[in-house]
């Protein structure tokens, strides 16, 4: 297990969070069929850092964007979804 620094609640146990999907899995309404297919069904799935969407399901219930290492679980960057809007 690891700690996730929720942008709203601060560092909390990973047990409170739910992995939602890889950021590359987001399908956009204006995407081509090929882009949508790729978003739904193909992944880089690296042994390295990847952008992911999580939810603080048992906390503030906010959606979070993070760049997390898929082997060490180190989180290099984290922010609330929509923080830059």
């Amino acid at each position, binding site marked *: 297990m690891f700690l996730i620094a929720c942008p709203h609640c601060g560092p909390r146990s990973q*047990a409170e969070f739910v992995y939602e999907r890889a950021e590359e899995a987001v399908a956009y309404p204006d995407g081509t069929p090929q882009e949508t297919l790729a978003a739904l069904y193909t992944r880089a799935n690296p042994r390295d850092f990847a952008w992911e969407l999580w939810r603080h399901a048992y906390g503030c219930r906010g959606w979070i964007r993070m760049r997390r290492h898929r082997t060490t679980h180190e989180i290099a960057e984290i922010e609330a979804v929509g923080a830059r809007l």
Partner: protein
Amino acid sequence: MPGAMKGYSALALLKGGFNGHKSWPRAWRAPEPKAFYDVVIVGGGGHGLATAYYLAKVHGVRRVAVLEKSWIGGGNTGRNTTIVRSNYRLPQMQTFLELSLKLWEGLSQELNYNLMFSQRGALLLGHSDSDMTRLAELGDSLLTNGIDAKRLSREQVARLVPLLDMSPDARFPVHGGLIQPRGGTARHDAVAWGYARAADALGVDVIQNCEVTGIDIQGGKTVGVQTTKGAIGADRVAICVAGDSSTVAAMAGLRLPIESHMLQAFVSEPVKPMINTVIMSRSIHCYISQSDKGEIVLGGDPDLYPSYSKRGIPMRIEEVAGQAIGLVPALSRLRMLRCWSGVTDMSFDGAPIIGKTPVENLYLNGGWCYGGFKATPGSGFVYAHTLATGAPHPANAPFGLERFASGATIDEAASGPQPQSR
């Protein structure tokens, strides 16, 4: 020396007793890779070794190498809960897993290797009226397709597994069950060793400590692999590395419908026989069985986020132990001996991928989620057929990589393209 396999038998064992068991030859050779093979199989787990065996045995393709980056059976083959069954809901899964189960039934004799295959039954418990409805549906589906299934009343379940908590205030009240009597368990290491020995005797080179670092593609065609033991040419390259499929497929520029997640398993100290079947549940994700050595083997949910770490999360240990004790309270007296974790290839419909890839002469066998062990013989059998003939066997025709684009997914859990919701 290919073909020089010394048969294992009671008589040979008795003879060995007179010379301190010093006359046993090694079970398989340790060859250096040749420059070229008809088929190079990437991955020396049970599936890869089974593929090599059936290529040589059924199809006469004997210039075959199995490349394993570590030692054979050191990956997911040695990390599962050893359960074998074919009681799935969808007809494609049933046909394929029943082919596999039929191979299991004669496999110890065929390989001349004791796989300790024990058809002690695979029992699914129902904990509510709706569970029982779903079990009835599953049982009907299995019987319709010629697979054994028997619905059990609450009393029949209690007789079969007397240690289940049948009290009025049980945490998981048992309403009944559905058993596949031909299901059971097998010794997982022995499956890898048995296939390796039998494949080696047919001339297959089983090469350990040889990691594939690249896939050579010329003019759109796969022509070989780069390894830590040098370049190896091949007419066909067969990826068979579930857990790491994305990494190896990326060497050929492919992106797969796979995410890698952790799955844990646990084993207790060995005790005298107390559980004589495989216990599973329709409502909770908990598997309980007892190994021939006496250990209670437990499995549960995966860790539900992508990871290659091979380290499980403690909260899952607590959860699985809680569920197991809820079902069989006597387990609370046992000390846990080990827990471990493996990397599973979570495919995006929950079904495996076996077939061609968009790159010519490159084949893929992966995406086993947490259900690969039971499929080992069938997976090798149909993959060998696909590699030898260039076309899928009828049993793996529905499991091609192209099914995701065409919409013909095989979604046993009906949960959509999200690997963490299997």
